[in-house]
């Protein structure tokens, strides 16, 4: 189990690096799928099979497919032009680098505080996840659903056909 955890972790890191550095949009998207798979395996080894399954269904199975759909529809899947190459200059790495460093500090602080889960511990049943979501975390669920509803209405508004002035 521990070996699987470290292999999956390494795959996730490498795949994510490849996502950032690929010039072809579709190839980058596929490495993102690999990265999400690896994260799902990490969740599984940490004793969260339900979250692992949802990770694959929701992220790999729906969200990235939507990205893929958009990329195919706009026909921007091939090699990126000189514009994107300019954006990959070393100087443009500073901003994301600083943000990532801040995250890294936070991560190290959490690990140092000793609040880490064990690999191969007790698996959390789907039922327990449900009970937790609709018990102590009910407010979070409600907030997320409100946000999603707002996004839905917004998408409906932006997506509707513009009416002609004479009311057609």
């Amino acid at each position, binding site marked *: 189990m521990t070996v699987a955890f470290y292999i999956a972790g390494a795959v996730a890191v490498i795949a994510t690096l490849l996502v950032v550095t690929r010039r072809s949009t579709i190839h980058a998207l596929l490495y993102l799928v690999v990265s999400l798979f690896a994260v799902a395996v990490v969740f599984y080894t940490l004793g969260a099979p339900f979250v692992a399954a949802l990770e694959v269904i929701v992220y790999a199975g*729906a969200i990235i*497919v*939507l990205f893929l759909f958009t990329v195919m529809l706009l026909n921007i899947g091939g090699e990126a032009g000189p514009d994107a190459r300019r954006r990959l200059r070393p100087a443009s790495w500073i901003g994301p680098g600083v943000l990532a460093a801040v995250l890294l500090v936070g991560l190290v602080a959490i690990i140092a505080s000793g609040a880490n889960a064990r690999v191969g511990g007790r698996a959390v049943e789907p039922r327990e996840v449900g009970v937790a979501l609709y018990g102590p975390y009910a407010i979070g669920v409600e907030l997320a659903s409100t946000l999603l509803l707002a996004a839905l209405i917004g998408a409906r508004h932006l997506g509707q056909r513009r009416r002609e002035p004479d009311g057609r």
Partner: protein
Amino acid sequence: MSEAACHALGLAGFGALATAAWATVLYDLVIVLVVLVGVLSIAAGLTWFERRLLSFFQDRLGPNRVGPAGLLQPLADMVKMFFKEDWIPPFADPALFVLAPAIIIVSVLLAFVVVPVTGSFVIADLNIGLLFFLAMSSLGVYSVALAGWSSASKYSVIGGLRAAAQMMSYEVFMGLALTGVVLLSGSFDLNRIVAGQRGLWYVVPQLPGFLVFLLAGFAEMRRIPFDLVEAESELVAGYRTEYSGMKSGMFLVGEYLGMTLISALIVTIYFGGWLGPGLPGFVWFLIKIFIFIAFFILVRATLPRPRYDQLMDLGWKILLPLCLVNLAVTGAIILAVQR
């Protein structure tokens, strides 16, 4: 008891344990092999079965020359496909072009891992079995979409686009239809879902859910009437226009594997799986699966293909509300009974 005797006993116990572990591993491997060979043979046999059955429905004979009743036709077809030129178009993305047919086979075969043939004859009895199936079936869309995109021809791309939208949409209805069964059985575990149907098959209390799942199944395996991703009257062959030889053959096998998988799941989830009087469990399981496969072929021989916007309208305007009402009513009844 002397210490030496204890030691010897402990060693013997350890030896027995190790042997038992090896036996389990061996047994698991046997199950994997039987399922793999069985499923692939069914998929290959279906190429013959579908053509013969279609011919029967259409008052023709069908392939009956190779072997007894044409039974060796799949073998002849396979040999033919292997000897065809394995061609990658110069304008295609070669890596993805090769990867795409592999994805469909792998994702469908992996989904068979959680299907219980009998109560104990299952590769992995996961407590998230149903979710695992949904995860694997949602990966199938990559195969079709990537095949369309990497072929870089307009028919393929349109086929791939249609596939991405269609399969992603119907995945939603499929998941929502299954939640009704999860509510009734109280588990994602396919074995427990089958065990929960000892008195009554779930198709009776979950009839709307079953109908939605059936329609979503048609869309997920891209068969007539929902085969708009390869509608030959408008898109040549859709996403697989540029494919030839065994790569094209793998899409074909993938389609038959998908048909077997959806039939197996319909049987497991709504028609009591291996449960049945008299005959052994796996026989009942196979009989039920073949009834549904024959039904899918009958539908292919019968129904015309709708327009693409009609397909999407059916999904989002009829099936989605139907699923949600089914879910709400099922939940309400369960709550009322528990009170």
